């Protein structure tokens, strides 16, 4: 080819110049552990199901959610949502209302009749689960989804454990509970009610390959209180259980509840609904030290429950209780002051905690008890080979969500044990911390708060107190998720690269074109959710 004077090279595109050779660091797309997932006791992939929900694909979101937790409609009502406490968005404006979106998905599933699909190939293994509370049901679900045959034996008349007999209907309507339990029955889980298991060891002899003890903690703790005979003294667990059975106890017009946990508040709120004119909660320490959750306290106060902080019951007599005022000492422990006061009371409800009925494990070789609960190893197995335990009967936080997490963990451990293997957790990615976010890109959007029944109205009935979100609001709320540590397809990296070195793939993901990436790091710096790491090139 003839060229002009002094010209020796052919004209061409700069694409011939591979500037990637300048690079000392390369961007790498990563998936980090969002704080919500990290905090979830049931191990839900919160960010993952919100991602599906954001596009309005609610069924996929629900299916993603129930991979870990089969009870979104229940959780969306009674979970104390540690995910929201951990949510990074709280540092931008307000935490994402994860719990209300979960409830929305759970309610959608019930409305639309979405079901689980059990595997068609069966393992031929049989597992007995003792108790149908959250940990028992959760274990049953995860084991059934692995193809095992599952039988649950429940001593009460209906399944649900504390979800039915401990949590009042105004927090968890029974039709929601029934709907989510029935899905397990539909995939072949057999629930035998009114059946008390006396000896789990004999079940193994009867052909069960493993047993999971999910017996809960149903015995109310008692405390000695000097009392005359005109005041009824009951324990909160019984009051809630009888109410759930439709045979509520007669409590009278003035009720005093003793204790500071969620059960105390549930009992007081239930007493109001049963017609008590006055329900007073006596607690020996301060509001800050109270174990009950703040949201429950707020709702109780709205319903007219009266709190007596720093008080203990000294004695009970002829239609009245005498309380003593306490003071916190320098160590923060309540100490008596000698100042007394009398409160009118037709009945006293003790809500001082619950204990496990351990008679079922008595005499079983190898099973040990510590501080009133069954000892288990990291795989939730007791000292007796093949007998596992979880939920409130073992050490740990006593919440329904934690119990559901136990059920999942036990199911995996049992599954591995049946195969003669040791269950190994998938490695946890690094936490997607707030400092890795570029919050500039997130527009301000406050949380949608679930509407509540008018406090005065709801105290008269067991109608559900907290209402759900409508679709538009739930969608809005899902889209407030920052997607911490996981790409959500915002095109920022694709847009901000000065070298066009980011390729947008058909599936919505991205890829770095290392022929041209100079490693400037703008993509990583401007990624809103911190899903790009800069990794040094090997020299």
């Amino acid at each position, binding site marked *: 080819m003839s060229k002009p004077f002094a*010209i020796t*090279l*052919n*004209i*061409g*595109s*700069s*694409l*011939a*110049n*591979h*500037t990637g050779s*300048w690079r000392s660091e390369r961007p790498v797309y990563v998936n980090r552990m969002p704080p919500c997932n990290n905090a979830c006791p049931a191990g839900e992939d919160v960010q993952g199901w919100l991602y599906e929900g*954001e*596009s309005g694909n609610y069924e996929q979101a629900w299916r993603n959610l129930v991979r870990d937790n089969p009870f979104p409609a229940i959780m969306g009502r009674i979970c104390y949502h540690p995910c929201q406490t951990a949510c990074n968005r709280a540092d931008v404006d307000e935490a994402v209302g994860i719990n209300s979106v979960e409830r929305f998905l759970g309610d959608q599933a019930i409305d639309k009749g979405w079901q689980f699909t059990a595997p068609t190939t069966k393992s031929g293994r049989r597992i007995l689960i003792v108790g149908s509370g959250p940990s028992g049901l959760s274990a049953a679900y995860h084991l059934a989804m692995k193809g095992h045959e599952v039988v649950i034996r429940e001593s009460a008349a209906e399944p649900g454990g504390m979800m039915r007999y401990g949590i009042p209907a105004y927090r968890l309507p029974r039709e929601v509970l029934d709907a989510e339990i029935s899905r397990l029955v539909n995939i072949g889980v057999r629930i035998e009610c009114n059946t008390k298991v006396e000896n789990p060891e004999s079940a193994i002899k009867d052909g069960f390959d493993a047993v999971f003890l999910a017996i809960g903690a149903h015995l109310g703790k008692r405390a000695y209180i000097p009392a005359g005979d005109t005041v009824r003294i009951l324990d909160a667990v019984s009051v809630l259980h009888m109410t759930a059975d439709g045979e509520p106890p007669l409590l009278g017009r003035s009720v005093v509840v003793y204790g500071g946990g969620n059960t105390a508040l549930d009992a007081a709120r239930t007493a109001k609904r049963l017609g008590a004119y006055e329900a007073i909660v006596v607690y020996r320490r301060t509001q800050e030290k109270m174990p009950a959750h703040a949201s429950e306290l707020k709702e109780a106060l709205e319903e007219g429950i009266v709190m007596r902080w720093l008080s203990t019951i000294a004695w009970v007599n002829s239609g009245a209780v005498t309380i003593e005022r306490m003071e916190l000492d320098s160590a923060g422990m309540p100490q008596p002051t000698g100042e007394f006061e009398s409160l009118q009371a037709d009945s006293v409800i003790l809500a001082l905690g619950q204990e496990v009925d351990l008679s079922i494990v008595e005499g079983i070789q190898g099973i040990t008890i510590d501080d009133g609960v069954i000892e288990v190893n990291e795989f939730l197995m007791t000292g007796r080979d093949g007998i596992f335990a979880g939920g409130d009967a073992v050490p740990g936080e006593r919440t329904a969500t934690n119990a559901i997490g136990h059920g999942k963990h036990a199911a995996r451990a049992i599954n591995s044990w049946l195969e003669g293997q040791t269950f190994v957790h998938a490695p946890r990615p690094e936490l997607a911390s707030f400092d890795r976010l570029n919050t*500039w*890109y*997130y*527009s301000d*959007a406050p949380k949608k708060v679930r509407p509540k029944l008018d406090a005065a109205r709801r105290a008269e009935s067991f109608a559900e107190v907290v209402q759900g979100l409508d679709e538009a609001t739930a969608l*809005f709320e899902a*889209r*407030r*998720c*920052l*997607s911490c540590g996981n790409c*959500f*397809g*915002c*095109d*920022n990296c*694709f*847009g*901000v*690269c*000065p*070298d*066009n*070195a980011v390729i*947008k793939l058909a599936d*919505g993901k991205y890829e770095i*074109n290392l*022929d*041209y990436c*100079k*490693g*400037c*790091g*703008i993509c*990583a*710096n*401007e990624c*809103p959710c911190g899903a790009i790491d*800069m990794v040094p090139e090997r020299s």
Partner: protein
Amino acid sequence: MSTPLKFYQVGSFAVGNRLLGDEQLSVQSRSDRTNSLTSGHRACQGCGEALGARYVMDAAMAATDGKVIAVNATGCLEVFSTPYPETSWRLPWMHSLFGNAAPVATGVAFALKAQGRSDIRVVAQGGDGGTVDIGFGPLSGMFERNDDVLYVCYDNEAYMNTGVQRSGATPPAARTNTTHAVGENPGASFTQGKNLPKIAMAHGIPYVATASVSDLHDLEEKVTKAMSMHGARYLHVLVPCPLGWGTRSEETIKLARLATESGLFPVYEAEDGVVTATKKIRKQVPVDEYLQIQKRFSHLFGPKGNPELVKAIQEIANRNIAEFDLLGEAQ
């Protein structure tokens, strides 16, 4: 000045979002964007000018159905994009001399007019040196004649291509190779410099706007609007320069953001010489936050620092905030 989708995770401020419909996407979020300035160019890592030039030219191409002729002044942009025999431009592009991008663009516009090609539009572009200093007179002539050209200045606040010498757009106190950080008044002199957007406005031309690489949606809207108009139009884009400013390559966009959020670089548009819209500050920051991460201002900080000069720079930001109502309610 944002995507129509509010309250998505990032709908208002990120480049795009997987949930946006096709018609709502920014030009830069489209897989089929022109990539007017394509890969393989020899700009430094994290070059703000390379980014700004692609943003502007892709938007101009999208607005005109791909019918743009670009005329380039001498400068970094010209040098790094066209070292013979390679070119990074994917549109008709020409370069003449340092100071004459505006008159050459005028000539192209008139030639097109003579041929009856009213569909083809002309964009001239240059750095701050070629615009506010060397090409200043001819550019003023282009404004005065109201020639049908969009002139875009990529302002990185000094002559970076030739080794960081001060230009008329270098900010006060900044260290360059011709304004050393020595003496009583270290760095560039404390004057207004040449505020070209205001000078352009004083010509009463149809459209003048400022923008930065930190707000893509705003920048694309301004280019699109400018391409819908005729006559002389001027767009002034702030493009941080890691080499000349002494900044980390990954902080280019962050710097542009801090410049606008501190009030030092007001973002606004004007029609026929009158300001019609200003971009409000979202999260105001003191100028320190912007200055401290730049080596060209390092003599203002530390034990031997100069708090008085920092205060004086804050005064400039305060004056901008007052003049353009940068903290007011968003329109």
